């Protein structure tokens, strides 16, 4: 495809995304695409540490929940705008990331992954336990006070749709910049060979921590938006291991360590889940998750670079002819 063609297609896709809530009035469809945006955003955030930094996190729901609960509780109990509460939540999420990341990034092996699971479970147990404050298992409903940007409350889905789209675009631009920036290059080096990276002066624990903290902040922001979109949060919904896994799976299915992977993965995974729930959900619960597990297995075994690798075109530059043939060395 030539350049004009690609620009034309991109413009078409952009217009479709922008006009979607105008064309359709079914809230369910708008909500589904909105969830694609949110998962794509979280996937981009997760990718910073899980993909570019190759530190597998299965505890990102911790940050999602911290963001969601901070904004909701501050508004319900103290009437603080979620625009402020959301920032508080993001800061708290960053703090949690430092606490988890500091001891783990000094270690090699699966410790970080296991610690993130533990952190997620601790968050869930605490949100369940402190009922007076968090509503426990019953969760916190958000009473509706009428349309207001300051309270992030709207009677229609469309404003949330555009907010989620805006967040996605902002995070996408940030991650694209980071890929090319110093931190992105350092993360890539860490992913390839941590010892070699350190020998080149890369302070790997610090670089990973920065990526992890940013990743936490992005996830918390998505959590805030989710809470106000849905108007209700509970520990099993926003602080579950399943949510953490889903965030990771979105990226792995789409293409780990790539810019478009999380976007593609979110589209595939969210739509697949919604479709199976729509057609098979009435039959038995669990059908979508069976597919989910299968998808993960198949991708890991057959397509470790994710679905995005189906679109790979340009072959990598190879050695000039006169230099010689490939030699494999230990």
């Amino acid at each position, binding site marked *: 495809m030539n350049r004009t063609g690609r620009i034309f297609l991109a413009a078409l896709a952009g217009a479709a995304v922008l006009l979607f809530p105008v064309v359709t009035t079914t809230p369910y469809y708008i909500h589904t695409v909105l969830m694609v945006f949110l998962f794509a955003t979280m996937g981009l955030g997760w990718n910073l540490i899980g993909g570019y930094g190759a530190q*597998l996190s299965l505890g990102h729901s911790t940050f999602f929940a911290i963001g969601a609960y901070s904004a909701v509780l501050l508004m319900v109990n103290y009437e603080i705008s979620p625009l402020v509460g959301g920032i508080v939540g993001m800061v708290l999420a960053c703090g949690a990331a430092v606490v988890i990341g500091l001891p783990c990034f000094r270690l090699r092996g699966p410790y970080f992954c296991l610690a993130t699971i533990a952190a997620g479970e*601790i968050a869930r147990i605490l949100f369940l336990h402190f009922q007076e404050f968090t509503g426990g298992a019953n969760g916190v409903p958000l009473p509706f006070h009428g349309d207001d940007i300051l309270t992030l409350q709207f009677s229609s889905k469309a404003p949330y749709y555009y907010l989620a789209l805006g967040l996605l675009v902002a995070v996408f631009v940030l991650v694209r910049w980071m890929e090319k920036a110093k931190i992105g290059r350092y993360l890539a080096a860490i992913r390839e060979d941590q010892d070699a990276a350190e020998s080149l002066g890369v302070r790997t624990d610090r670089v990973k921590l920065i990526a992890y903290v940013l990743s936490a902040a992005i996830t918390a922001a998505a959590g805030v938006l989710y809470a106000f979109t849905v108007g209700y949060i509970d520990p099993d919904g926003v602080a579950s*291991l399943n949510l953490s896994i889903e965030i990771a799976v979105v990226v792995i299915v789409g293409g780990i360590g790539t810019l478009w992977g999380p976007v593609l993965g979110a589209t595939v995974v969210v739509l697949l889940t919604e479709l199976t729930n729509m057609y098979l959900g009435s039959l038995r619960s*669990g059908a979508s998750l*069976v597919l989910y597990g299968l998808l993960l297995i198949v991708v890991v075994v057959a397509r470790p670079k994710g679905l995005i690798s189906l679109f790979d075109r340009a072959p990598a530059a190879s050695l000039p002819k006169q230099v010689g043939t490939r030699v494999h060395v230990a």
Partner: protein
Amino acid sequence: MDSTIILQTTLNGLMIGGVYALVAVGLTLIFGVMKIVNFAQGEFVMLGMYVSWALATFVGIGPYPGLLIVAVIMFVGGWLTFKLLIIRIIGKSDEAFILLTLGLSIFLQNITLLAFGADYLTVTTTVKDAAIRFGGLAISLPRLIAFGVALVMVAALTLFLNRTDTGRAMRATAESREVATLLGIDPVSCFAVAFGVGTVMAGIAGVLLTPMFYVYPGVGTLFNTTAFIVVVLGGMGSLTGALVGGLLIGIVEALGGTFVSLDLSQLFAFLIFLAVLFVRPSGLFGRSA
């Protein structure tokens, strides 16, 4: 505080800790030999429970007489999982193993949900409500049996690793894959045995749990996270560590659940886990990194 309650709670914790130890021993064996974390270990416990339930319900073989049958079925299942899936990603990153077994865990849990529904199933045995009493304390018989069998299994596994050629080959592989290969050991077949035996341990734990736990698709997740904590606490790859760690976590959860708050009982295990990561990541019995 009443010392009888403390003793009784500790005893209960110790008994359930035996089962934790059994699940964790399987996990730590797989980690020790293959250097991978099996995220489907809890689902193998769950499958062991369902097989045991099916044997009792459809064939009329109770959990304890059916133990050996479940063990054989689980070994075959573990071996097949290895041959069909795990073997395809040997030599790839740790992340690939974690993600593959994670996918397997999600798949197994939900295919069970599709097949059997979310209902809580129970297996009745003659010993279900029996208990041994002494000096004001009581131990329910299923817990005692679970504890006893768990200890015997751990001892048997230790003997197997120390006294048989296969076991020694596995230990050599755990020590260094390269050296083992030089000694003429095929690491991949050691991996297969380790994975199979690890699965059996989980399955047996499942059988021992059926008389005292509800059987349902999500039951494995309870044991998954606990087993990770136990394995890290004990030192990754250490059998003794898994045993002691399992018993410790059992006791901590029981005491925390009784004297602080029942819904916080798991919290203490997680806090111990994080403390270990901060202070001594090699665990109680692990070699320092």
